[in-house]
């Protein structure tokens, strides 16, 4: 169990009157324990307190998908949860799916298919792809579209994302992704 180290992103909360609750949560395989302001959003806890800045805040209302992570193995929004709601959960962010260096297989496929342009929304998509691979979603199924419809990309026009995702799902045999918990 570790208290998170101060990161260069963490903000001050000088007011002792701010209600706080103890939080114990597993993040990318490491147990984290902290006294967290009750109203602190999970997206801010992960980005600022833990320095996990891969997830992005695109809308703050759960509509765009840029903040998507895995909670207990399923793709979920981090901007529509309080940090304190994730007590006892297992959280995985993109940092937890990255290979030690370079790109894992899904990331390679995104690059090859040119499925990203500005890259701001990309971490969110990747988490949804990982959750689909966990479930062995069939690349030709309608379910693919339902999962992807949880994301917005303003740059690519989606065509290349569809291709990269279908390609990744067609290769899934459980061993396609490195760094998976």
């Amino acid at each position, binding site marked *: 169990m570790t208290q998170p180290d101060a990161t260069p992103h963490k903000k001050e909360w000088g007011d002792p009157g*701010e*209600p706080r*609750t103890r939080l114990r949560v597993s993040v990318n395989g490491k147990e984290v324990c902290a006294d967290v302001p*009750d*109203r602190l*959003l999970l997206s*801010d806890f992960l980005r600022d307190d833990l320095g996990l800045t891969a997830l992005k805040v695109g809308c*703050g*209302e*759960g*509509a765009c*998908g840029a903040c*998507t992570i895995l*909670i207990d193995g*399923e*793709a*979920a*929004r981090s*901007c*529509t*949860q*309080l940090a*304190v*709601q994730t*007590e006892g959960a297992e959280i995985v962010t993109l940092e937890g799916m990255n290979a030690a260096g370079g790109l894992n297989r899904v990331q390679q496929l995104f690059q090859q298919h040119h499925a990203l342009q500005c890259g701001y929304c990309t971490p969110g998509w990747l988490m*949804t792809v990982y959750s689909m691979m966990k479930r062995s979603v069939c690349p030709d199924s309608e379910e693919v*579209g*339902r*999962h992807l*419809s*949880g994301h917005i990309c303003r740059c690519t026009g989606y065509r290349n994302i569809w291709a990269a995702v279908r390609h990744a799902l067609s290769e899934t045999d459980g061993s396609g992704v490195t760094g998976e918990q």
Partner: protein
Amino acid sequence: MKPATFKYVRAETQDQAVELLGAADGTARILAGGQSLIPALSARSISTSLLLDIMRCPGLDMVLQSAGEITIGASCRQSQIERNPVIQQSIPLLSEALGWVAMPQVRSRGTVVGCLAQANPGGEVPVVSLALDARFDILLSGGVRRRMPAEDVYARETDTNLPPKSLIVSAAFRSCAAGEGWGFSEVQLRPGHVALVCCAATLAVDEGGSIRSATIAIGGLTTSPYRAHHAEKALLAAGGDVESAIRDAAHMATSERPWPSRTDLHATAAFREKAGVAAVARALKKAHARCSRQAGLKNDTA
């Protein structure tokens, strides 16, 4: 878009949740999945003094099958219920409708009962609860328990009739009867967006092919969902021409709405009325196709 200050408490038991709720001011709320509540708090369109998180309370995560009904506890997540084989078998209408709620990345955290309590306009789960004669088990402070039929809960133009400072412990849905068909239809701007209008319907036919039972529930057309009882009666009274009976019922179901239809940024009232007719007709046709098959009768309205 950061929430204002509130206190957060992880309730240990249902009773504790309700006692704390009762002792707090009128802004205190139950927190389950938070998928509607947290964004509203972030936008500061609502504020709260106290959030009571019920997700760890024992006895709220059950799916119970008993004679003729399935009971779903307050902490059951939408995605779990959507995929649950018991649900898919016994209340397939709910499983199908859940596939239309928001997006999978929201359903992984949101709860079924949370949808019922939140009652967003166009909410799919309240509509299904009406079509399946659902009953909510409600806990109030002092250990008082109450049962409310869904139709009573939603019998007002806006908000609900849920008692203040109450917790919905579970919701019981009528199981699909032998031979009964079901159908769900939704009109939306695009996948992932809200329902402009939606309809949940059940239908059963007798050996002669005449309709012997029907339920029609409509959401999104008006702020609260409603049951179209006149249209249901008309279906029962209809003779053998099920196709035209469905057409007439669809018109009746939308025109019998108890409140004015809605205009918002996404669609006008007039559009919702027209699309509502189409949605009801589609839901009834699907229901009819399913029950015909089950009863071994010829399918003539698919």
